[in-house]
């Protein structure tokens, strides 16, 4: 997809710590097309959030650095830009919402003011115009009595309403890409359903694509057009959404599905994945999942498996050849 909105090639991100340089993301590549929802799924420490932050150029300074690879957005290379130039893009062309609605809004300013900040910066509106447009945005994300709510403070709103404010803020400049880093993880199930429904409708109405980061496979099946599974900072598997859960090949994805209880009465005993989530400091050699993989072979411990396209639109990084061996 050469007309891709965003293509990331061999992205490697490292962190400077007392225990030396740790690699959080290792040669990650993916593309993002127009009006597409790409889901990046993985457990904690898999590097999914770090990837999102690197796209926005918000890696924690001075520790985090993109050591190689490129992030091209509409043909423009982002990794080389200065902070000043990135500020022109953040909130304007690419915007982001975060996991903790409780702490993501500044407690001392009204929600209206915090939205108007983006409008004043990128759209050059004056305060009155910005506040009026902010109220419209609040209405568009489904907040009741937007005229009144625009003047209320974050602590006066529930978690769900605050996440809607974050979405309104992110959409204020009609961005091309919305990065959502586990936006519903901290919310109750019913509120999560409302927010997911809202994001789907917004994606239809606006010409916008979404990078949705989550650890919940249920959410993936709800909204994803294409899904990437990450583990230990590397891409394990990537596939389009249609029939995703019946056709996954990679042992990690399969085992992951095996240890998640579902709410249907029929599923059998849980099959947990042995061992612990690898920390960045002591990552196993070769395939990152080799030390916990039921079907690990000697090759898995030595070399990092190449990414192979086993069927159009479906890649996996695993040494296992034929399909049967996997199931």
């Amino acid at each position, binding site marked *: 997809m050469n007309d891709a909105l965003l293509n990331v090639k061999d992205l490697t991100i490292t962190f400077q710590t007392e225990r030396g340089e740790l690699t959080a993301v290792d040669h990650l590549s993916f593309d993002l097309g127009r009006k597409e929802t790409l889901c990046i799924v993985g457990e904690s420490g898999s590097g999914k959030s770090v990837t999102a932050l690197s796209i926005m150029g918000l890696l924690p300074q001075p520790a985090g650095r993109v050591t190689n690879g490129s992030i091209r957005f509409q043909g423009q290379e982002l990794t080389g830009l200065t902070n000043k130039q990135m500020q022109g893009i953040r909130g304007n062309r690419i*915007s982001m919402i*975060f996991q903790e609605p409780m702490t993501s809004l500044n407690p001392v300013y009204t929600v209206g003011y915090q939205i108007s*900040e983006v409008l004043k*910066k990128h759209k050059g509106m004056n305060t009155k115009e910005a506040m009026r447009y902010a109220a419209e945005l609040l209405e568009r994300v489904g907040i009741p009595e937007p005229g009144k709510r625009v003047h209320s403070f974050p*602590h006066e*709103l529930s978690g769900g309403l605050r996440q809607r404010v974050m979405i309104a803020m992110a959409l204020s400049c009609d961005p091309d890409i919305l990065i959502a880093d586990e936006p519903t993880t901290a919310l109750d199930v019913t509120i999560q359903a409302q927010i997911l429904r809202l994001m789907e409708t917004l994606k239809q109405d606006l010409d916008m694509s979404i990078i949705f980061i989550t650890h919940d496979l249920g959410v993936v099946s709800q909204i994803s057009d294409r899904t990437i599974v990450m583990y230990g900072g590397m891409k394990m598997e990537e596939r389009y959404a249609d029939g995703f859960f019946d056709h996954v090949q990679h042992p990690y994805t399969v085992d992951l599905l095996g240890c998640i209880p579902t709410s249907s009465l029929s599923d059998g005993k849980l099959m947990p994945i042995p061992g612990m989530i690898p920390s960045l400091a002591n990552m196993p050699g070769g395939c990152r999942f080799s030390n916990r993989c039921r079907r690990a072979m000697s090759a898995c411990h030595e070399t990092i498996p190449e990414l192979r396209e086993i069927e159009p639109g479906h890649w996996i990084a695993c040494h296992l050849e034929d399909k049967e061996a996997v199931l």
Partner: protein
Amino acid sequence: MLRYIIKRVLSMIPSLILTSIMVFLMVHLIPGDPAITMLGDSATEESIEQMREEMGLNQPLVNQYFIWMGKVVHGDLGDSIFQNKSVMATIADRAETSVLLGVMAMILIVLISLPIGIIAAVKVNTWLDQGISSLAMFLASVPAFWLGLNLMLLFSVKLGWLPTSGFPSVFRSGDWSNLRYLILPSISIALPNTALIIRMTRSSMLDVIKEDYVRTARSKGLTENAVYIKHVFRNSLIAVVSSLGFVFASLISGTVVTESVFSLPGVGQLLVSSIMLRDYPVIQGVILIIALVFMIINLLVDISYAKIDPRIRYTSAK
């Protein structure tokens, strides 16, 4: 808001009563009394005894306390033994100096320490940050009299820009240029106290920088300046304001050394001289006023919290 203020003011009363008892006891425990200091070195024992009788110092302490408190309750702090005017008047004469000195020092403290504190936080763990912190700590440990005398030597004696000492009243003479008398004293008070505020600003900003909403602010594409001032500094204001309140309160009574070096007619100097003279009503009056001012400043600081941080004004039902 009014209900809260009334509640706080009512809660001040027990504290003030406790302070008055402590002060009264301590003052009367000090050896020597106004009769001695009034009649001086060569006075004979009987004349001193006679004077004590006249001053009513021989009555039991408890009676003296209730006589004094009786008047205080009606707002009359009694009369100074040595200056034949009321304690309130003596304090009023001196309050002008201390308040003006305090305000000028605070202005300097705020102008110097807030920007430097912000820079130290923004450039944390760089040589600039450590330089600023060490300089701040250095200023905090310079003895006040040494700073005062050296400033006086340089600016008054050698350069002759500013007067060395004394402070003619500004309100009475209406001549605002008299403030020049307070420039050197306020600098020598301000510098040691800037250290406290610089450190406070730096550490509270460092805490706020790690908050999620700062990352949100950056993700909105705001410039680093806007993020630091509008979002980070604005949120660390509470800690800064509380320490500013604390410093201002300590200024009112804590500037004795500087007042003695620049011979300023301040409250601190009045306190020291009335202790030397054992002018009981003045000592008790000054300490009560200092305690009252201290509590009022604390109240003002707390009220300002509501303005600074809406969460404190009222919590939502959630």
